[in-house]
């Protein structure tokens, strides 16, 4: 039987761990709410942009930007992998990487070579272990990511696409379904997947300044950046949600462990008392 004192120190240490996990759970809950707000705030920009871009694409059918071009045969594809900077968020990152590995295997079987851009330290660490050509990376975006910090990383990919070093760009990140569920998804970014074409006839057109192509070019780059930004923000919300759930179960487990140990402690204490009494009684009987 373990000594009562040992059990007591063990209980104390688990209690302090539980305090930490509880605090982390609450912090994650409030951060998640803010991350969700940020997610909603970024939507109107991309929405508006998509409207303008689809209008421009219909208004100038003779001009096809390379991002909107028809698919070319694929030899090498790029993945932008969005992960969290920190751990302790359940299986969030590993689920994403597992999904990615499956995807890469499929692509390799087709003879397609992958290249990567990573966002977040976890993805970088993963590729360091797993191997793979990482073209660019961005880490330590914090709880409030900014578009500026992503420009470089996205740009590397877009440049590689324009130089025909890669033939398509995908983005791998977590989708926020609800607090309990986050789904790893891989979406195609470039060439742009044409949405449902509204067959609305074109009654009017813009006056362009300086000209339609220049405007379209600068819009497309920004649109793709905003999509990446959205994924990063969404992944941030996922991270906090996953951490909240993970920390909640950690606190619950600590609670279970404490009640089990408490029983052990009580038994040990009782045994010690019984032993003492029997010693005294037998001592008295001997006299």
């Amino acid at each position, binding site marked *: 039987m373990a000594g009562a004192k040992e059990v007591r120190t063990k209980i104390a240490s688990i209690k302090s761990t539980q305090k930490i996990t509880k605090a982390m759970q609450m912090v994650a809950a409030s951060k998640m709410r803010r991350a969700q707000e940020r997610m909603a*705030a*970024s939507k109107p920009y991309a929405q508006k942009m998509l409207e303008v871009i689809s209008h421009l694409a219909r208004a100038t059918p003779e001009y096809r930007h390379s991002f909107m071009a028809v698919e070319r045969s694929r030899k090498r594809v790029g993945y932008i992998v969005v992960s969290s900077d920190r751990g302790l968020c359940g299986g969030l990152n590993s689920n994403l990487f597992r999904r990615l590995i499956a995807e890469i295997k499929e692509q390799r079987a087709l003879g397609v070579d992958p290249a990567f851009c990573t966002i977040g330290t976890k993805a970088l660490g993963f590729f360091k272990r797993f191997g793979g050509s990482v073209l660019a990376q961005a880490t330590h975006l914090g709880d409030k990511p900014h578009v500026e910090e992503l420009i*470089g990383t996205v740009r590397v990919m877009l440049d590689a696409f324009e130089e025909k070093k890669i033939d398509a760009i995908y983005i791998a990140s977590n989708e926020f379904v609800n607090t309990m569920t986050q789904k790893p998804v891989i979406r195609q970014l470039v060439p742009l997947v044409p949405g449902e074409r509204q067959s609305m006839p074109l009654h009017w057109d813009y006056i362009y300044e300086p000209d339609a192509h220049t405007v379209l070019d600068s819009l497309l780059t920004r649109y793709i950046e905003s999509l990446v*930004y959205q994924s990063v923000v969404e992944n941030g919300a996922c991270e906090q949600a996953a951490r909240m759930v993970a920390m909640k179960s950690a606190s619950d487990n600590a609670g279970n462990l404490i009640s089990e140990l408490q029983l052990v402690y009580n038994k040990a204490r009782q045994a010690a008392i019984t032993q003492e009494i029997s010693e005294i009684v037998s001592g008295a009987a001997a006299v």
Partner: protein
Amino acid sequence: MATIQVDIVSAEGAIHSGIASMVYASAELGEVGIAPRHTAFISRLRPGDVRVENEKGEQEHFYVSGGVLEVQPMAVTVLADTAIRAHDLDEAAALEAKRRAEDALAGQTAEFEYAKAQSELAEAIAQLRAIEKLRKMRRG
């Protein structure tokens, strides 16, 4: 008095939304003033002020570091950038991102060691847990 809907949005959130009688912005080819029922117009913006004048003649200023101005007869939308953009600045950012990747993969920085140590620690803890469970099962 005729009015026009004005929305200033950036990738990180909405900056302004409201009704105005006049909007001024510095477009690529010069300053433009947009009155209600302006014809459809689209232009890139230079870094500068966007002024929104409401019905009472009060002006509100918003600084944008570039972006795109889209005008339709009843609505003005400013798709604002959150940072100053220029070709060579973007290029520099791209190079920086590349360099970071090379650095991280080549040299073992302190930060990286930390991450590795953390993952090893997690593994060790998991192993200990498994051993503990096995012991319990044997005893039980």
